[in-house]
C-alpha cells in the first residue's frame, strides 16, 4: 500500500510512538564515529523545495544520507502554472527518475496532497503553505519527551500566529494524539475563525496560562502581518505575547521553552530566554535529523511503509468522482427543512474528531 506523511492526522498513536521510539534508538548513532547506516542503500529520496528553507532541506538531506539513500535536491521557486514548470510536470519528472520518496516543501497548502496523486513514491510533507509541517511536530514531541518524559497529560502552550502557522496545526493534531493538553495563545486576529472546533484550548491572556504550562512553544511572527492590521505594532505584540524574562520566571520550574525557528529575537522571544538552559531551540534542530531518519526509515525501509496515511487523491478524474460521492455532496432524500443528516461524510467523520 502506498502511504505518505502529509498531515499529523495521518498518524495513529501507535504510529507516532513508533516514530518517536525509532528516533530514540537512532539517536544513539549520532554519538558514534560512523553515523551512516546502510538501510536505504539503492533508494532514491528527492528533496523538492519550492520554498527557501535551507534548515529543513539540510535536515532531511542529512537524514536521508545517514541512511545511505541517494539524495536528489530539486529547488524550484514559484509554482503557478504561469511561472515555468507546473507541479504536475515536476511530478512526472520525478516519476521518470524513480523516486522512492519525495520530501516536498511548498508555499501552497495542499501541494503534497496533489503530488501524492501524481507520483508512485511516498510523499513526506516538509511544510505546505499555512497547512501542516508534520515532521516539525514530531521533532517537537520528541524533544518534549526527552526533556519531560511521557506526554500524556502534559500541558503545552503554543503562542503566536496560529492562523498562518503550519507548525501549530501539526502540533495540535500530534500532541492531541499523544495525549497532551494544548492551549493556543494569540491575539484574536491571529486565530482561524473556527478554532473552537480544534482539539485544544484557546486563550488570549498569555500571563494567565504561564503557570499552568509544562511547555511553551513560541511561533515566529511575521512583521508584515502588522501591515495587514493583525496587530497594531510589533512593540505591542511583543509586550502582550512575547516571552521575556519576567514571563519565563512565571513558568513552573521544570517547564521548557521551544521555538521552531527561525527566531525573531526581541519580538516573540527575548534573547536571554532563547539562550537560557530551559530553551530547547538548539536541541530541536539536532533532533530534527534523528526524527526525519525515523520517518524515512519507516516509510521507505521495508517492502511497504509502517506508518502514515493511505494514498491521497490527486488529479485523477475517476478518483475525484469517488470523493464527491463520499463526502461533501448533500444527497438528502428527505425534506431538508427537517434537517435530516444529509452530508455523506464517509470516513471523514472520524478524522474530524481528531482534527
Amino acid at each position, binding site marked *: 500500500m502506498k502511504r505518505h506523511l502529509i498531515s499529523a492526522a495521518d498518524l495513529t498513536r501507535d504510529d507516532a510512538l513508533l516514530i518517536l521510539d*525509532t528516533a530514540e534508538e537512532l539517536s*544513539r548513532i549520532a554519538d558514534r564515529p*560512523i553515523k551512516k547506516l546502510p538501510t536505504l542503500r539503492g533508494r532514491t529520496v528527492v528533496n523538492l523545495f519550492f520554498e527557501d528553507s535551507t534548515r529543513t532541506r539540510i535536515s532531511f538531506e542529512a537524514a536521508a544520507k545517514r541512511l545511505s539513500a541517494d539524495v536528489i535536491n530539486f529547488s524550484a521557486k514559484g509554482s503557478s502554472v504561469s511561472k515555468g514548470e507546473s507541479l504536475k510536470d515536476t511530478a512526472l519528472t520525478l516519476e521518470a527518475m524513480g523516486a522512492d520518496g519525495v520530501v516536498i516543501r511548498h508555499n501552497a497548502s495542499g501541494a503534497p496532497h496533489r503530488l501524492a496523486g501524481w507520483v508512485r513514491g511516498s510523499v513526506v510533507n516538509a511544510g505546505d503553505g499555512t497547512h501542516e509541517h508534520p515532521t516539525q511536530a514530531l521533532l517537537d514531541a520528541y524533544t518534549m519527551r526527552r526533556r519531560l518524559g511521557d506526554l500524556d497529560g502534559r500541558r503545552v502552550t503554543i503562542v503566536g500566529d496560529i492562523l498562518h502557522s503550519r507548525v501549530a496545526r501539526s502540533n495540535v493534531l500530534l500532541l492531541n494524539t499523544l495525549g497532551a493538553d494544548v492551549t493556543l495563545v494569540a491575539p484574536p486576529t491571529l486565530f482561524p475563525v473556527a478554532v473552537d472546533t480544534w482539539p485544544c484550548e484557546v486563550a488570549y491572556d498569555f500571563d494567565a496560562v504561564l503557570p499552568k504550562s509544562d511547555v511553551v512553544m513560541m511561533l515566529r511572527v511575521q512583521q508584515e502581518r502588522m501591515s495587514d492590521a493583525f496587530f497594531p505594532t510589533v512593540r505591542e505584540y511583543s509586550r502582550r505575547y512575547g516571552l521575556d524574562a519576567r514571563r519565563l520566571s512565571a513558568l513552573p520550574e521544570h517547564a521548557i521553552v521551544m521555538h521552531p525557528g527561525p527566531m525573531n529575537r526581541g519580538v516573540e522571544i527575548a534573547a536571554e530566554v532563547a539562550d537560557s538552559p530551559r530553551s530547547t531551540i538548539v536541541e530541536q534542530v539536532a533532533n530534527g535529523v534523528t526524527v526525519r531518519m525515523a520517518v524515512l*526509515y*519507516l516509510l521507505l*525501509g*521495508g517492502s511497504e511503509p509502517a506508518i502514515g496515511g493511505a494514498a491521497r487523491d490527486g488529479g485523477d478524474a475517476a478518483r475525484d468522482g469517488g470523493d464527491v460521492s463520499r463526502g461533501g455532496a448533500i444527497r438528502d432524500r428527505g425534506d431538508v427543512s427537517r434537517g435530516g443528516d444529509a452530508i455523506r461524510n464517509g470516513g471523514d467523520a472520524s478524522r474530524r474528531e481528531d482534527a
Partner: protein
Amino acid sequence: MSAASVPAHGSSPDSDVSHKTVLEAPDIRRALTRIAHEILERTKGGRDIVLLGIPTRGVTLAARLAARIAEVEGEPIPQGSLDVTMYRDDLRLRPARALGRTELPPEGVDDRVVVLVDDVLYSGRTVRAALDALNDLGRPRAVQLATLVDRGHRELPIRADYVGKNLPTSAREKVKVLLAEIDGRDAVVLEVPK
C-alpha cells in the same frame, strides 16, 4: 531430552502445526554453562571479552552467559546488545519494523574480543548483518559467535564458535527459543507443519 509434543507456551493451539520440545529448561541451563566455560577456555579466562547479544533473545542469553562467567571468574564482564535491523539484507521483503536497542558497554569494542550471542543460527544472514553493524561501531581484535541452537541450512560462509545444541531440521520447520525473562519459561520448541 524430552520428545513430548506440547503446545508452545503463549501461542494458541494451531491445528496445522505440531510442537515438539527439543530442549527443556535444564538442558538450556547446562548448554549455557558449557558455553560459558568454553568461552573462558578459548579466551584465556575471558580477558578483554565483550558479550553482545542480538535482540531480542540473544540479549537475554548474553546476560545469562555474562552472569555465569562472572560466577566462575569472580568479576563482571562487559556485555551489551547489538541491533542488526538496519543492516539486514531482507529489509525490502517485509514492512519496515521497529528497531531493537544497540547498547555498548562503556569499554566499547575496540581491541576487544567480541562474542556475538544469538538464539538460533540458521542462514547466517543475521550474523552477516551483525558483523556489518559491528564494523560501524569500532574495530574488535576478534569476533566470535555463540548460539544456543544451530539448525543448519547456512547460506553464507559463517559458523559458530560455541553451540548449545546442533539441531538437524528441515527448512519447513521452525525453531522457537523460549526464555523465562521474555516468555515465562525456558524451552526450545520445534514447530513441524503437518
